[in-house]
């Protein structure tokens, strides 16, 4: 029980640092295009390999962190990453083989969905 708590705490800290690195550290180095992708990859892997509600909570929290750091409406990344976490969990249940190829396909599909959803939610928040 204590071990699980510590593991989860480490995951939360890693997410915080990945968000800070993507939104603050990399842009200050002149790398602007990576932004939210380190967090996305981490959330995808977490949801693909860990079961239960905790990965979904992590996705929501990570998204909210990115929204706060980049000064966007709360929800643009929070809802996008939450949706991606759901997609990743469904993909993990449906995929019969756990080969590297199927993981790569799932990752590409999720990345495309993430890109689309971010822009969709950004648009939604700009009109409501």
């Amino acid at each position, binding site marked *: 029980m204590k071990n699980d708590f510590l593991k989860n705490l480490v995951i939360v800290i890693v997410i915080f640092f990945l968000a800070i690195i993507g939104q*603050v*550290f990399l*842009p*200050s*180095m002149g790398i*602007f295009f990576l932004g939210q992708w380190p967090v996305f990859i981490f959330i995808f892997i977490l949801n693909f390999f860990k079961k239960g509600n905790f990965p979904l909570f992590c996705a929501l929290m990570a998204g909210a962190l990115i*929204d706060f750091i*980049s000064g966007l409406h709360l*929800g643009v990344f929070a809802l996008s990453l939450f949706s991606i976490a759901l997609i990743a969990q469904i993909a993990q249940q449906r995929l019969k083989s756990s080969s590297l190829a199927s993981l790569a396909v799932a990752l590409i599909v999720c990345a495309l969905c993430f890109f689309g959803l971010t822009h969709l939610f950004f648009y939604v928040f700009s009109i409501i």
Partner: protein
Amino acid sequence: MPKKRGKILSIILIFCVVLLLGKFLSNPLSSVFHKIFSPAEKYFWDKGQKTGTFFFYLFQAKNIYNENQFLKEQNAILARKNSELFDLSKENETLRQAFNLGEKEKFNLLPSQIISKQATQDVILIDKGAEDGLVEGMPVITSSGILIGNIKKANKSFSEVALITLKDFSFDVEVNISGETTTELMALAKGDGSLDLSFDYAEKLIPIPEKSLVFTTSMGGNFPKGLLVGEIEKAQTNPAGLFQTGKIKPYLKDCLGGNVYIIQ
């Protein structure tokens, strides 16, 4: 089945709650977040800047050496011009006094630090907000007078700055074409997103050479006159069109690391 239905309902509930929070509580929550975490953000921004500079010097050593040689030559030329300008400045001051003209406009600058950049568009966040007297539309520059953008939204403790390269951001500029005589050509600069800037509506008759400097004008009332924007990267004329268009290399690309100043 009821378990699945319960899960779907909770997902819908989460979506609704987040949408409502985003709509009504985004700004206060963001302000509290930045108040708590801005030291960490500043720390990481500073460290990132130093790391970036280290790698830049590491990979660009040869170019830096060549640039240094070129700048030394330029420095010698400019030092000579500077002494000429010093005399002209004194003469100008005497004439202003003689004709009872007021002093030249001086800016009231408020220093601020960048804390992050928005992931989806060319917008940066700075650590000064409405409580420091910032309002929408105030121009933001670097210490060397290079235009960065203007205040897009002033929150309580932080502000969003729209970079001049933000998609659909437009403002009037003048292109200084140096030849036997210096010609100033009016144009409209437009942000293309991803830190790219272009221009349009420049008169077709005067060809614009590459590396011509681009400054702001007071036309349109967005920015004060004379702020440096960048240099012409490419100019082209469509034979069927009425104007010249092209690309501007914005100098802000190299200046996003340091402090910025808000013109109040």
